[in-house]
């Protein structure tokens, strides 16, 4: 799995192989990562150097407290990047806009209901495919006109999930 990770403008490319090997900007690093209990506390050993961090998801990003410094980290996997690009496309500010499934998958969550007002970037649906979740965000503000899916539905590529008007 490839991730594009950004901290204060600086972007890192991190790859996690199926076997759990990790590459940071193409360079293999030997890491041993462990969660302490079920809390947000993690221990990371990088070539035996020890790091302790508290980690918390917040508004789709990751807060990492490491040695007293708090990092606000944006972790984007390939699909999400693709989806963001989509959302980035200029879309008409008026009229209907159909949010479609960019790939086949399972609906993991629906965060809107009919009549609800949404703003640009609001989460609308989470689609899961190949074990990864992908957030589908509203490409423009508007009101939810129609919700065609519910949690647990399997959907086809390009199937219309939600309509904003």
């Amino acid at each position, binding site marked *: 799995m490839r991730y594009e990770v950004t*901290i204060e403008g600086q972007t890192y490319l991190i790859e*996690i192989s199926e076997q759990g090997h990790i590459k940071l900007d193409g360079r293999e690093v030997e890491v041993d990562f462990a969660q302490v209990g079920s809390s947000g506390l*993690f221990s*990371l050993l990088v070539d035996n150097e020890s790091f302790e961090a508290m*980690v918390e998801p917040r508004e789709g990003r990751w807060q990492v*407290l490491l040695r007293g410094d*708090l990092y606000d980290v944006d972790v984007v996997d390939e699909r999400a990047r693709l989806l963001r690009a989509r959302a980035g496309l200029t879309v008409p500010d008026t009229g209907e806009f159909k949010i479609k499934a960019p790939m086949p998958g399972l609906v993991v969550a629906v965060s809107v209901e009919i009549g609800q007002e949404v703003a640009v970037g609001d989460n609308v649906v989470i689609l*899961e495919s190949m074990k990864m979740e992908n957030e589908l965000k509203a490409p423009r503000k508007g009101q939810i006109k129609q919700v065609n899916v519910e949690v647990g539905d399997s959907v086809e590529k390009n199937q219309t999930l939600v309509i904003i008007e």
Partner: protein
Amino acid sequence: MADTPTLFRKVLIANRGEIAVRIIRACRELGLETVAVYSDVDRNAMHVRYSSEAFYIGPPPARDSYLSIEKILEVAKHTGADAIHPGYGFLAERPDFAAACEDEGIAFIGPAPTAIGAMGDKVTARKTVEAAGVPIVPGTELDLRDEELSVAAGFVGYPLLIKATAGGGGKGMRRVDDPDEFENALHSARREAEAAFGDGAVYLEKLIDGGRHIEIQVLADCYGSVIHLGERECSIQRRHQKLLEEAPSPFVDEAMREEMGAVAIRAAQSVNYCNAGTVEFLVDRDRNYYFLEMNTRLQVEHPVTEFVTNMDIVKEQIRIARGRKLSRTQDEIEITGAAIECRINAEDPYNNFLPSTGTITAMTVPTGPGVRVDSGVTTGDPITPYYDPMISKLICWGDTRGAALLRMRRALAEYKIMGLKTNIPFHQNLLDSTRFIAGQYDTTFIEESFFLDEDPNLRPEIAAIIATLAAHDQRRKAAQIVRRNGHDGQSNWKLAGRWQRMRG
């Protein structure tokens, strides 16, 4: 405040946050019952949980709750509390509150209303202590004519400040470094004062450049004994807010300590002070010190003094209020090692110290030798916009200042708070700055000479790896749960499992 031994069993703490908890702990250790009061947002607060009793006193705005003398006295009477500790802030320096307690026959754990009043009015205070031989910032009396002032200016000496008698907020204030500038400055100051307050009266005051804020802790019982516990260095400030304090001051030697201590005692005696109090001084580069004001209450930074003197100031306050004599004489006070206090605030040091509110989602406090944490919150507690943004005070002791400093670095690195931003990076930076390490700083240091730069120990690539692994991890788990929910039956066992963890 009784002058014959008063035995009380139950103390109402008219405060909240860390200082309420601090006082509750002292009471418990003295076998005293406690009564906490709380506003709506503080229902779950630590001071409510740690107290033996707790009473609701109104909505979040202080004036409707923590500043309501009637409500607090009502609770005191209802619960049969025989003493009230005001902590700091809120009603701590309100003579009418102290008097109201007396009228109700409730011991006020603090000085007499008269002493609070005398020190509360800055002009009276200045006059009173001056009469007692305490040096004050040199200046003129009020209401002189221009000619008189220009003469007086020579005596006051440059640089000086022209201040509006009716002044405030810097209006009608002028700094004058050079005699030639005096006349113009005087006229513009008068004009501005006239416009601002309808009163052009001004007076002159020596300007203390690069001054340090150094204060002396005093203890006085009701039998005329007054002692001092040495000084606290409080020059690390931002917008007049103290951020870090230490005892002893790297600027003060034994002789100066004795001298300032004696002067502080005189200041306290000048108002027949009885209980714990702090005399604040402005100290110039030549070690001249000038009385600023006396705080007739417990200070936020009292723990650094407790560390280096092995005295419990809050217990001493209660002891005094009970009408007993001080537990020690001046000769029995010895300064051992050094202590530093960092105020841990919910604010973003990288964003102009903007207050950061929210709920503390996770917290690990530093422990081990020589570390003390006075906190008013635990995991799950919110930091609301209604009260000050202080999360806790982290205090470290060492046998030398250097040792205390290194220990503080260690403790700051161990301190983990999630859910909001804190000023811990500021303190880590400060403890790395050569001028701070050398003890070479004054009240202007933070605002004028200290720049919060990137922590040299930043490891963003490590943070990136950790966040990615956590994200990778969590998304996989999330996906599994959902699939289970959708398709097979075992799912909700996991759900239950999660519930337990959430509760845990």
